[in-house]
């Protein structure tokens, strides 16, 4: 067994590298690049066409395009983080991680660091598509604002993914969870239509998900709002994201204890 380090920073970075390698071990880099460039494209296209067909004046193509562009972060971050836990189980590396004395929090977060960058790259590409392929008008955009939204959202949604991946420690698969969550996000986060369209009992759930703030903030930024004016939204999103990390870490610890008790770690 390689020497372990009680230095959290070192564990953090080596977890990130492990995450990157894990992503690549079953996924050739060419494939990852393909995913990076194409996953958002088709999702945006789908909803743009539906919106075009529907021709609802309060839901423009731009509305849908920007919403889905932001949502692509969820795809990259959440999905990949959850997959890593599922994969680690499959490849049998999960046990060594749980058993190692490295700082667990660092491992937990280190894995996700790479995904944050992945999410940022994905959303940048998605917004580029929105501008170039779907004719969204970026002429009045405050790019600083938009950048801020992207960064905050990448962190917040990755935090959400970490929380979900804790479930993966306990269940057979976190992929089912990730799938459910991704698609619920499409419905609840103001991606394709305003949250106000939803029945009132669902709306509170929307506001517990960082993406809801992100879509609104992104649209504001695209139409020219400055960082200050969307500051409230960004702050709310950050708070939700941090809450997710804490909840996720608590679940991580709890599930780890439960897994040890029940010996479910190597079932998959």
């Amino acid at each position, binding site marked *: 067994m390689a020497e372990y380090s009680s230095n959290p920073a070192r564990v953090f970075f080596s977890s990130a590298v492990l995450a990157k390698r894990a992503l690549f071990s079953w996924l050739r880099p060419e494939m990852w690049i393909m995913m990076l460039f194409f996953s958002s494209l*088709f*999702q945006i296209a789908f909803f743009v*066409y539906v919106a075009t*067909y529907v021709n609802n004046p309060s839901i423009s193509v731009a509305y849908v395009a920007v919403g889905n562009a932001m949502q692509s972060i969820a795809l990259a971050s959440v999905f990949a983080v959850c997959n890593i836990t599922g994969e680690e189980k499959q490849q049998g590396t999960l046990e060594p991680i749980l058993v190692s004395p490295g700082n667990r929090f660092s491992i937990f977060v280190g894995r996700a660091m790479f995904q944050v960058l992945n999410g940022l790259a994905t959303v940048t590409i998605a917004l580029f598509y929105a501008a170039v392929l779907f004719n969204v008008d970026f002429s009045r955009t405050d790019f600083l604002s938009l950048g801020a939204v992207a960064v905050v959202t990448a962190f917040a949604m990755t935090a959400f993914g970490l929380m979900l991946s804790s479930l993966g420690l306990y269940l057979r698969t976190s992929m089912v969870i990730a799938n*459910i969550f991704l698609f619920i996000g*499409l*419905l609840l986060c103001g991606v394709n239509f305003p949250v106000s369209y939803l029945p009132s009992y669902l709306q509170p759930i929307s506001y517990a998900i960082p993406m809801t703030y992100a879509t609104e903030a992104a649209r504001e930024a695209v139409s020219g709002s400055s960082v200050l004016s969307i500051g409230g939204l960004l702050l709310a999103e950050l708070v939700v994201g941090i809450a997710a990390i804490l909840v996720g870490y608590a679940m991580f610890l709890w599930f780890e204890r439960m897994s040890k008790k029940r010996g479910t770690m190597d079932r998959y």
Partner: protein
Amino acid sequence: MSRLRAVATAFRQQALIFWADPQWLIPNIIAPFVITLVALMLFKNVDGPVVLYAVLGGGMMGMWGNTLYSSGWSIQSDRWWGTLESNLVTPTPLIWIIAGRAIWNAWIGILNGVLILVFAEVVFQAPISLNDPVLFFLAFFLTLLSLSALGLLFSSAFVLTRAASVLTNGLEFPIYIGTGTMFPIALLPFWMNPLSLSLGPTWGIDAIRYSALGTTQFTFVEGYWGDLAIMILLSFVYLAVAVVLFGWLDRKVRRDASMGRF
């Protein structure tokens, strides 16, 4: 005779494995169901039988998703479990084994689609009134066969790559778009039409819509029977290509030893 037996055996095996872990179906129900709900939200102010239109689209997406997902994962699972070699060492050519699985997967896809229809109807409390139930079920059934053939084709493409799962997830939306599940393919750029029309289920969903909605408002000029004929023809093309691909792949796999590692 033994070929048919192999198909039946693989069908049975796939069913047993499915029932051991039926939760794998959940993603395939959730995704189209949620997309249908989103579409229905978007369709709120539109006239016409939009609820049924959207719900049928959702059902179709369910069937598609399941085909893709199962073709992508079933052989990958064999790789993970190490059972691919056990299958390859038998005298039954792999294509018959995969064919049996593809039929089961398409069958589950139909069930998947029906479940979505039922859920959506329950949620929106709109009764299903099919214009012509007999034609509807015929179209559904033939679409199942077309999906099986397509699943067989996809399996042969996925069996060698490490990235089967990326392709599986990655093709989901392009197919929803290309086959016009939730909007007419007329909206798509003209160069996409050959792609759309080369997919059997595009014609299938057209026939399904016609028999359910009873209007030609949403359908192709070929009409119901034209649609089915073209879909059947395309299915034979898929089978022919699959046969060629499987033969080529069998040789390649044995040459490159790429089946044991993912």
